[in-house]
């Protein structure tokens, strides 16, 4: 698979990436590039390895191959170091601290940062999700699904990421809110944050993405401009079940 980003322009560059769960291979030599300022979507059926890919980049699993972020190899770096480098993952199922308040969840996002402006990203979080500001003292576990997703994204933004990875942000939330969340993703990109998003909702996601990769059983079977992939009838039928 040829690189899709001009050499030297990639913020994130993945080559020959393999990963497995207890010996069961989930990724077979993935190649993927994300340039600074892009929204890149990874789409594909259940079990194609989309979540695994994001977890591998975030340092949450053992991998083979190369993952280079802004010139630094991420392999064998602990998850907390990767987070400090500016790679944030909004994990599948959100993984909020359900017993802690909204405020505490946001504060934990800023955990790795020091200095007076460590809570600086809070302005952006409130601007994107005003509802969170109203619910600061409420326990995360008592929020609605959509609000929890907002909080999960807000918490990741508190780390001041350069690359924000979102794993199925539409999962388990009202259709109306899905558009809000994806609109927020576009606004986050407008602030200079690069986005790598995994989603099952193809039409909406490909509409905001610049480029997309189609994954099938752990391999990239197609990549290109999001618009082209969305409009290619063959692709839609063969890989995306549409």
């Amino acid at each position, binding site marked *: 698979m040829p690189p899709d980003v001009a050499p030297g322009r990639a913020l994130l560059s993945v080559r020959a990436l393999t990963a497995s769960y207890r010996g069961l291979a989930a990724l077979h030599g993935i190649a993927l590039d994300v340039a600074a300022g892009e929204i890149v979507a990874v789409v594909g059926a259940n079990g194609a390895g989309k979540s695994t890919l994001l977890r591998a980049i*975030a340092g*949450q699993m053992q991998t083979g191959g190369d993952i280079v972020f802004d010139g630094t190899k991420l392999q064998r770096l*602990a*998850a*907390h*170091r990767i*987070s*400090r480098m500016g790679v*944030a*993952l909004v*994990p599948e199922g959100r*993984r*909020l*601290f*359900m*017993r*802690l*308040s909204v*405020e*505490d969840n*946001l*504060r*934990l*996002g*800023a*955990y*790795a940062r020091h200095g007076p*402006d460590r*809570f*600086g990203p*809070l*302005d952006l979080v409130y601007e994107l999700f005003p509802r969170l500001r109203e619910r*600061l*003292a*409420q*326990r995360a*576990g*008592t*929020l*609605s*699904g*959509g*609000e929890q997703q907002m909080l999960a994204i807000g*918490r990741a933004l508190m*780390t001041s990421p350069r690359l924000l990875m979102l794993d199925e942000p539409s999962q*388990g*939330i*009202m259709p109306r*809110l899905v558009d809000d969340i994806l609109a927020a993703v576009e606004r986050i990109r407008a602030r200079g944050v690069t986005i790598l998003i995994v989603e099952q909702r193809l039409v909406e996601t490909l509409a905001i993405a610049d480029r997309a990769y189609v994954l099938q059983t752990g391999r990239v079977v197609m990549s290109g401009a999001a618009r082209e992939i969305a409009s290619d009838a063959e692709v839609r039928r063969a890989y995306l079940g549409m």
Partner: protein
Amino acid sequence: MTVRPNAITMRRRRELIGGAVLLVLLALLPLPIANAYLRGLIVLTLLYAGLSQGWNILGGYCGQISLGHALYFGIGAYASAILFTRYGIPPPLGMFASAALGALAALLVGWPCFRLSGHYYAIATLVMGMMVLLLAQNWGFVNAAMGITIPFRKQSWVDLEFRIAVLPFHYLMLAYAAIAWAIAWVVEGSRWGFSWRAVKDDVAAAESLAVRVFPSKMAAAAISGAITAVGGALYAQYVGFIDPDSGLGLSLSVLIALPAVVGGVGTLWGPIVGAAVLIPVQQLSVAWLGGSGNGVDLMFYGALIMALALARPQGLVSLFGARSRAGGEVADRA
């Protein structure tokens, strides 16, 4: 820009004021009480409030349930007692050694055991505690099963020795419980406190936010071990005697954890409320029902704990709505 809304700063300030008021009340409490038994009961209650607060830092805030805290208690008690009786080092200084050794022991236990999760960690601490109990029962340096008696020489604040008068011990234990509470208060609002609660709630999520899980647990363990060890040193001075059973027994580990569990795990007031209920009940049930050897006192005590756990699974502090600020209503899930 501040992330703290007023409500939370206000709550923390209220807690501090509440703590100060309680401190004054407890300082005055023994003055009208002439009964030496009752005074002794209050001293023990204060000791357990402090011990359990120490346990709460690791077990409550960080979520690492330890069933081996008697280990740190015993190390603290033995360290100060041995330094005092053999080397003449006064207990107020010896307590620093106790704290250091307690922290060190907690780190040594944590090093292998924090690689285990959930129940396995609790079981490992239990086994560690029993191993050291066996060791102490057979180790000549600590007088094996005979234990160490701290001879009374003269009434002295330097040596922390007081004849009959329980009052000085009341203030020592009160200071101990207050310091343990203050440490928990500081911890609650600190970066460490946040990282501990994150680790307790979701390890993977904490890690992805750059929380270093293992060092976080180790830090909680060290602070917890140090607080517990100082309590052990105070206990040894109070009773004037320490042996493996009283200082390292499994029942002691349970007794250290219980007030926090019954009062409210991971809460500031839980250990105090729990100790205030459990320790008097335990002591009085021994006094009134025990002694016949039929174990009625233990049955009564056990039944009470079960009743409390059934009635208030969130701990007794939930009676006061201390946690209701979170808003109980579960929002409709879309």
